[in-house]
């Protein structure tokens, strides 16, 4: 894959929830780690972690203000869980949650928008924020996304126009397979649902600090997350590994240092991986083993 140009169809790999109602912002603010109530204008967006009352990760959400409500992007396999979670906590609030994943397209363009004439220029738009724009005549939400050091663009619109938009993107960009994208994701240090984003881990050890507000007030799991941060109680850190052999699939395997288990590999693909290891071992250049393979820490993803 040429990392500077291509696109992937995230339609099945991401979920999209529509939240309508006067209390949608306030409810999401009470359920997630970030200050969602700061999203006051159409097009604004931010990342936020949905956490359990034990401060463990349910999913990393991307929340966007639409003209009629909120668009919440979830990890594809987490969509039903996230929707059920929001429904459970919708008690007296004026909030209607609908899974609109099948009614919407979602493409991610991995290329500067200025190089593709059918896309609006998003270079001045901060990550997570977006604009409504017509792409080849199709009304779409265009969101600025940062994956590692690369600026990307997410396009979301009505599914009836999905094939048409895809044909237009094909004129400019190559299609990226999910495996290619997964390698790109791991290389960029982006956590994924079911791998790094699980209830086995908390947002601080998973490197999700940018999505946490420590002065917004209460949300589910806040007490635990705040205590972990204040008293420096985070025990593990997410790090990126490299190893020489391209073949071994190491996801789910224990990471050992001098025959002691010090962590677990959570993502791996062709000599590149991410995993959680004890904080004391999380230093660039440290070597350890995973399933007999010598692996080297090349980046610390959690501060």
């Amino acid at each position: 894959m040429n990392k500077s140009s291509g696109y992937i169809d995230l339609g099945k790999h991401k979920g999209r929830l529509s939240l309508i109602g006067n209390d949608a912002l306030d409810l999401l603010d009470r359920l997630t780690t970030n200050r969602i109530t700061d999203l006051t204008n159409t097009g604004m967006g931010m990342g936020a972690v949905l956490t359990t009352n034990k401060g463990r990760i349910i999913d990393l959400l991307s929340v966007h203000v639409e003209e009629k409500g909120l668009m919440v992007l979830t990890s594809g396999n987490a969509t039903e869980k996230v929707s059920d979670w929001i429904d459970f906590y919708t008690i007296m609030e004026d909030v209607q949650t609908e899974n609109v994943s099948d009614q919407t397209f979602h493409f991610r363009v991995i290329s500067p928008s200025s190089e593709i004439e059918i896309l609006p220029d998003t270079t001045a738009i901060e990550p997570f924020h977006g604009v409504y724009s017509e792409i080849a005549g199709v009304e779409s939400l265009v969101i600025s996304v940062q994956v590692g050091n690369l600026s990307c663009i997410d396009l979301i619109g009505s599914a009836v126009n999905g094939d048409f938009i895809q044909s237009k993107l094909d004129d400019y960009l190559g299609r990226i397979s999910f495996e290619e994208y997964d390698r790109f994701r791991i290389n960029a240090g982006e956590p994924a649902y079911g791998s790094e984003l699980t209830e086995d881990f908390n947002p601080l050890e998973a490197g999700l600090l940018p999505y946490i507000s420590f002065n917004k007030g209460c949300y589910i799991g806040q007490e635990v997350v705040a205590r972990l941060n204040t008293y420096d109680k985070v025990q593990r850190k997410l790090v990126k590994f490299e190893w020489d052999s391209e073949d071994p699939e190491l996801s789910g395997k224990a990471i050992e240092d001098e025959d002691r288990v010090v962590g677990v590999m959570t993502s791996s693909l062709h000599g590149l991986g991410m995993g959680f290891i004890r904080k004391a071992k999380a230093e660039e250049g440290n070597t350890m083993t995973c399933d007999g393979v010598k692996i080297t820490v090349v980046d610390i993803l959690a501060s």
Partner: protein
Amino acid sequence: MTTTTPQPLNITISEDAAVHVKQFAAAEGKPEADLRVGVKGGGCSGLTYILDITDDGPGDNDKIIEENGVRLFVDKKSYIFLAGTVLEYSGGLNGKGFVFNNPNAKTTCGCGTSFSV
């Protein structure tokens, strides 16, 4: 053989709590007001208690409970999480004010204002 039908768990308010509700209502200039009790999502543990003096009257989905001279309005979804709760008042220098003794609460947060079921 005799069978007994389980009685639905009610929400009750202690005499002391009722006195303080009336005092707060009077202080707000609404001596005839009622008390809305409920829960909402949020708080460290998942659900947070709601307590409001109100003179809006009951809503269509409210249960109305009258005890110790105070009318409580509880919406039906909140009632699921509050059935069996006794609303009490803890006064004095170390007091916490209104306290929900909720048998459904499995855990509560440090400050006691939120709980999980």
